């Protein structure tokens, strides 16, 4: 089962290396990891999607990460009412013949074209992983040249913030 963890860490150099190193050393299966600044200047938030076969694996991931001095807090968002999103940029081959069709797909997915030239377009899409996977599948027929995805970020609904949980 996939679990989404929000990991609040000190905004210091080396923290992300430390976390990713620990994850690989302990042989945990990580689907994605995404880090960025937060509402507090000295805190970074890392969203980790981890595949855990049972509760013990998840318990180990959380406990081992919690031991790191620079990890302030870990919240398992999995069971919570939450919003999660990923951003993808996709470079697709677009000839004059196919461009209209591609734009059509872009429209349906509420994506945007953020760059266009004679040969390709770059499509920007946000959404859950499934949605991005679905669009990639459709665009594949036209020739995908490059995909870049951010990995999942997640936030709980309602007024309470993760650091207060």
């Amino acid at each position: 089962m996939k679990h989404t963890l929000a990991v609040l860490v000190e905004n210091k150099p080396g923290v992300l290396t430390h976390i990713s190193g620990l994850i690989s050393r302990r042989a945990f299966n990580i689907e994605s990891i995404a880090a960025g600044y937060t509402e507090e200047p000295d805190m970074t938030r890392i969203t980790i999607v981890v595949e855990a076969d049972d509760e013990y694996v998840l318990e180990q991931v959380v406990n081992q990460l919690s031991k790191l001095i620079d990890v302030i807090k870990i919240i398992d968002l999995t069971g919570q009412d939450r919003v999660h999103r990923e951003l993808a940029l996709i470079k697709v081959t677009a000839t004059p013949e196919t461009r209209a069709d591609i734009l059509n797909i872009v429209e349906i997915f509420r994506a945007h074209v953020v760059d266009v030239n004679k040969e390709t377009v770059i499509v920007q899409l946000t959404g859950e992983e499934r949605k991005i996977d679905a669009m990639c599948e459709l665009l594949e027929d036209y020739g995908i040249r490059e995909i870049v995805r951010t990995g999942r970020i997640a936030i709980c609904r309602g007024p309470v913030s993760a650091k207060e949980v």
Partner: protein
Amino acid sequence: MKVTGAQAVIECLKKENVEVVFGYPGGAVLTLYDELYLSDFPHILPKHEQGAIHAADGYARATGKVGVCIATSGPGATNLITGIATAYMDSIPIVIITGQVAVSLIGRDSFQEADIRGITTPITKHNYFIKDAKDLPKAMKEAFYIARTGRPGPVLVDISKNVFAAELEFEYPETINLRGYRPVYDGDPEAIDAVYSELLKAEKPLFFVGGGVTLSDTSDIMRKIVAYSGIPTVTSLMGLGCIAEDDPNYFGMIGMHGTYAGNLSTTETDLLIGLGVRFDDRVTGLLNEFADKAKIIHFDIDAAEVNKNVRSHIKVIGNLQWSLDKLYAKMTERPSSEWTGQFRPWRDKMTAWMNEKPLVYNTDSERILPQAVIEKISEITQGNAVIVTDVGQHQMWTAQFYQFKQPRAFLTSGGLGTMGYGLPAAMGAQVGVSGKKVICICGDGGFMMSCQELMAIADLNLPLKIIILNNSYLGMVAQWQRTFYNQHYAHSCIKTKTDFVKLSEAMGVPAIRLEKKEELKTVLEKVIASEGPFLVDIRIPEDEDVLPMVPSGARLDQMIMGG
């Protein structure tokens, strides 16, 4: 107060009541060494950085204080790696100070530059890189605090060369504020109640005591609980000495080379209570069938240890000082006689196992057998020496045949199994406990890995005694090759023209070779009573095995027995 970075480091060491540092100078720490010189700070110079870190480790294990180690950048720092990993695996508090190239040279593959922070990230409890002098006092304060609190461990502070010379306004922080580090002390009192009610129901409980009891200095309260309840007790390698070997409730070490009674008890117990243990694979054998008839209770300060290897039914997270005090208080609500009565049949059964198959060896042998050496040392020192071993057969024989009475009396690399650990660790231990007898027992293989420290031991005139159990083989490797690899002694024979006695004497440590069985007692008595350092090269048979032995991956009752 305006000081230089180097002066600040010395001030921090003083504030932390550091008595001595183990270190090796070099380019990046020259400014710091100049300050050590000017302030006449006590410093021990081993002959290799690896010796410095093992010595700091031995000092920490023997005294319970934080060991401190200094090395220069690049190769100086990388020479520490094995020692840092050794300390990390056994949760030993050490603060390591390494020099780093100047900030302006960082990241340019400069002379003697190594990313020691990156390299040591998985083998330190925490580490720092200081490139601005003003950050130094806070980092040092935190480093000592993190090293000794919670589950102890090594903490590295890497300091750029220019920082040592830079000026700062020195103020040692009074308090610590680490959002992500709040080591637990008190746990959940309800967990103690749950343990109590399990004990009321249990017929065959077993205390399994590990290094956590040594580290938390809770051997006294643990012994009280055992004496009051009559619960049979076994230890891991790291738990040796937490309970006296002659305690009627003690049934020895368990694991690959554990006692018959101890190992068998793990398969029969209905309530296994782990106190500060990791359930290492050398202890559990076949994990799925370890203590498979038992409910498991795990006491530990580190929540991540619970359910890591063995699944626990009840976890008691917190400092053992808290949890064992609480447990003892709770257990005394019921008379001692009721507890001991409840567990007597089980204890009698274990005693019968112990008598049926005790640890034995061939006492009729014409040669000096290693087990006899250990027994003799144990007799002469009455179990009161600080024993430091290297890694291999001699380590297991020491664990089996030395009659330990106190914690912090058996210093050994348990988790990492580091050959070359013994001699420098014994040196550090002797520096820390100058009034005690310290005896280093090593094999001929491990001895050669750090024999250069004989020089340091001689020059410091440490009263350390070094016993080499010399069988001309990497004994444990050879034992496995004999047992599992068709007697293919691939590169485990280390017969040599080197004369250990002459080597030792050349380095300034008097030495003697011992081959005759009838001389064992008198020579050992004389050597142990002598004043300065002394080395004894004892020739033992090549093919003596450590037994019992549970083959790797087998259940603990599948023992190859000796005798």
